[in-house]
């Protein structure tokens, strides 16, 4: 499942709620190199909208995709610069 985006790191924020999924995603993406992809695993349904909005409003990141299934929301974010 992760191979599709060739993820460099996985961030597990399952069980955590707003604002932690976004805040921790930002911290994790800062540790990546440009071009690398971060996979975020969350159980907060709000993370679908929040990570989408965060990625759209933040310089240097790109949301590649989001998946909903088996009670876990998966987000794929690439650091672009």
């Amino acid at each position, binding site marked *: 499942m992760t191979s599709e985006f060739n993820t460099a790191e996985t961030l597990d924020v399952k*069980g*955590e*709620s*707003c*604002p*932690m999924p*976004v*805040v921790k*995603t*930002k*911290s994790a993406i800062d540790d990546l190199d440009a071009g690398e992809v971060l996979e975020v695993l969350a159980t907060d349904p709000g993370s679908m909208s929040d990570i989408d909005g*965060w990625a759209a*409003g*933040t*310089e*240097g990141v790109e949301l590649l995709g989001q998946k909903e299934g088996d009670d876990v929301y998966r987000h794929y974010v690439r650091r672009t610069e």
Partner: protein
Amino acid sequence: MSTDTPDSSADELPSRAELAARVEELEQSLAEVSPEDDTKKMSIIATKGTLDMAYPPLILASTAAAFGYEVTVFHTFWGLEILHEEHSKNLKLSSVGNPNMPVPNVVGALPGMDRVTTKMMERRIDDNDTATIEELVETSLEMGVEFQACQMTIDLLEYDEDEFYDGVTTGVGAATALQDMADADIQLLV
């Protein structure tokens, strides 16, 4: 572009050259007034110290920091409790004055009821894995949020600088807050 033009007389329209000159002129004056740094800024004034009211400024501050905003939160009056390391872990919820509370005001006013409602809220926070106030303060600090403790309130409540979280800015007043608000893209009073 072949968009429909409004019904104005073509004779009155400025020429291309005139428009280009005007655009250049405007761009120049814009460059003069805009700061070179295009980092977005948010300024929050936090005035409340109850458990429920401590959350919004911290959630917004940490989220804005995640967006790359430069964030300052100026804590004044009871908002200062959020920065007080010990008090921030024991913020209370008032059982009166909030019609959404499951107890009528007349019951909520009984001795010990604030403790009951606070415990109830703390349990919910725990059950839902909602971040604690301490967690949010520390996360925000790590992300570069500047927490400012109003000097006048520090003196008024007779606090010592050592009682605040490490990294909190002290020795600031309303003029600092006003300056931050004037420079900010978003200003909030909570």
